[in-house]
């Protein structure tokens, strides 16, 4: 865990980072984002002591890093910067094996580690081992940059706009690879970017910074759902929430009081209720509010002359969702089942609401 305790960094009179107190959990990807000059890079660089705080302390796993030799500290953290960070005069093997070299690993162990890492980032050692950075594409170079940061298997990896200089397609590929890598390795990653889409894609937690302060530090989902103030809202972009159906929850859009009917009611009563509420189906619910199924107008009309009760024509095989499901899931259920509505049910089978096509259109249409 990386803890900032009242950390301030001043350059003369200007404050780059102002009284920052934040805990970055182990194994999480934390993205620092904000407009230029907001202090995000300064914050990152204080973690490996490339910049020393003016006040306050930073702890890594409860050890005050100002007590650790900076050279040692850095050798135990990965560091990735924009693609120019590879040394052009060293070949790929030398670049990747640099930290192990600095740490005095013996040559065979180094070679083995380099080959392992090249395989890990999907670049065959036999082809790339002796190449030089200028013979590689931008995307390949940055893969090497990531491999280099992993070389000594550090617990913490610092990434300062690593994909900033890449074209959008390569950037997206590398972001995906980083996510996959993170699934396997579970490193603590601190990632600086100014690209909100990148942040939303990669982050477990996002810290939105402005003028040296963290305005909001939360999961991407919570930031999208509850921006703490207007700046955050503007910075995220007001339309982004609506563009991303996976962040819209069922409970926010469902009809909370759908028209219901008891199973023992007659079909006449059912038809009357439909007419009254101008709906074409009814939620069949027992007296304690448990969901049983759905009665549609078609089924009611077809069986109308038989004089039966609602339970006989209730469709019980019905896909349903919980209130924490997102709109994407609802959309796919609707598409698969060719249905226009999905009931929302809690763990005790109680009916909470209903999502219909028109309630979806209302929400998605706003964007």
């Amino acid at each position, binding site marked *: 865990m990386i803890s900032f305790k009242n950390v301030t960094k001043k350059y003369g009179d200007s404050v780059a980072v102002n009284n920052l107190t934040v805990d970055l959990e182990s194994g999480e990807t934390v993205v620092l984002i904000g407009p230029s000059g907001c202090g995000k890079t300064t914050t990152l660089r204080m973690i490996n002591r490339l910049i020393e705080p003016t006040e306050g302390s930073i702890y890594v796993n409860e050890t005050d890093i100002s007590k650790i030799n900076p*050279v040692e500290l850095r050798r135990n953290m990965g560091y990735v910067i924009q693609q120019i960070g590879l040394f052009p*005069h*060293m070949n790929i093997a030398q670049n990747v094996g640099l930290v192990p070299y*600095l740490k005095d690993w013996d040559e065979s162990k180094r070679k083995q580690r380099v080959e392992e890492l090249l395989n890990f980032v999907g670049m065959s050692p036999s082809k790339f081992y002796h190449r030089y950075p200028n013979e590689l594409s931008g995307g390949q170079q940055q893969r090497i940059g990531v491999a280099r940061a992993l070389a000594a298997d550090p617990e913490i990896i610092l990434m300062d706009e690593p994909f900033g200089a890449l074209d959008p397609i390569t950037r997206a590929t590398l972001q995906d690879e980083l996510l996959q890598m993170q699934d396997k390795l579970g490193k603590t990653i601190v990632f600086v970017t100014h690209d909100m889409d990148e942040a939303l894609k990669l982050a477990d937690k996002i810290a939105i910074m402005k003028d040296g302060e963290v305005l909001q530090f939360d999961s991407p989902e919570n930031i999208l759902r509850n921006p703490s103030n207007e700046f955050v809202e503007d910075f995220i972009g007001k339309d982004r929430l609506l563009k991303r159906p996976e962040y819209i929850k069922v409970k926010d859009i469902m009809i909370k009081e759908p028209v219901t009917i008891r199973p023992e009611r007659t079909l006449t009563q059912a038809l009357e209720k439909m007419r009254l509420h101008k709906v074409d189906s009814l939620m069949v619910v027992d007296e304690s509010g448990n969901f049983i199924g759905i009665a549609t107008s078609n089924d009611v009309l077809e069986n109308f002359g038989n004089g039966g009760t609602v339970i006989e024509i209730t469709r019980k095989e019905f896909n349903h969702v919980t209130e924490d499901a997102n709109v994407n899931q609802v959309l796919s259920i609707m598409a698969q089942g060719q249905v226009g509505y999905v009931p929302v049910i809690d763990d005790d089978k109680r009916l909470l609401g209903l999502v219909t096509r028109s309630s979806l259109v209302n929400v998605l249409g706003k964007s």
Partner: protein
Amino acid sequence: MQLLNYVQNNMSNIIRLTIEHLQITGISIITAIAIGVPLGIIVTRYKRLANSILATANIFQTIPSIAFFGLLIPFLGIGKETAILVLFLYALLPIIKNTYTGINEVSPSMIDAGRGMGMTNFQILRMVELPQSLAVIMAGVRIATVINIGSATIAAYIGAGGLGELIFKGIQMYRNDMILVGAVLAALLAVIADKLLGYVELKLTPKGTK
């Protein structure tokens, strides 16, 4: 004809003077590298020193060589040592200046990457800054060498020997053959030295930055 005869009859003397010429320039250049490169590095670390050191080296460069020899004779007398000292001072500026420029031009992000990965200051110098500024430093050495091979001919005037001796004697004795041999050999030495250093530079340049 006369020229060939002269060369044939004075072979051993010509060879001796050529070797002497190489010695004077060689010693002065090697000393200049040994002192100039570290000075250039120090100057990048203490930028406040940069202007005064570069200005001092600049002054040596602007003094005409013959005047420079003249200035030092009262203190050091005539002979090889004085010549070597003057040539050393001449070579200093291009070497310091190019070392300074070369290292200063190494991209800050390279140094940042090195530091961020846990290199010590010395490792940054050895593994990042020097390899990446090698071409510029070598260019300085080449300039200094070529200039010195030329200036060393004048050193014969103060009794340092070398190919200049043939030229000066030739002028005094109206002997075109002697002048030609001295001048052509000096020019040839300069060209060969330049090519040779160019080759060394190529060999030293890491593959990835060619």
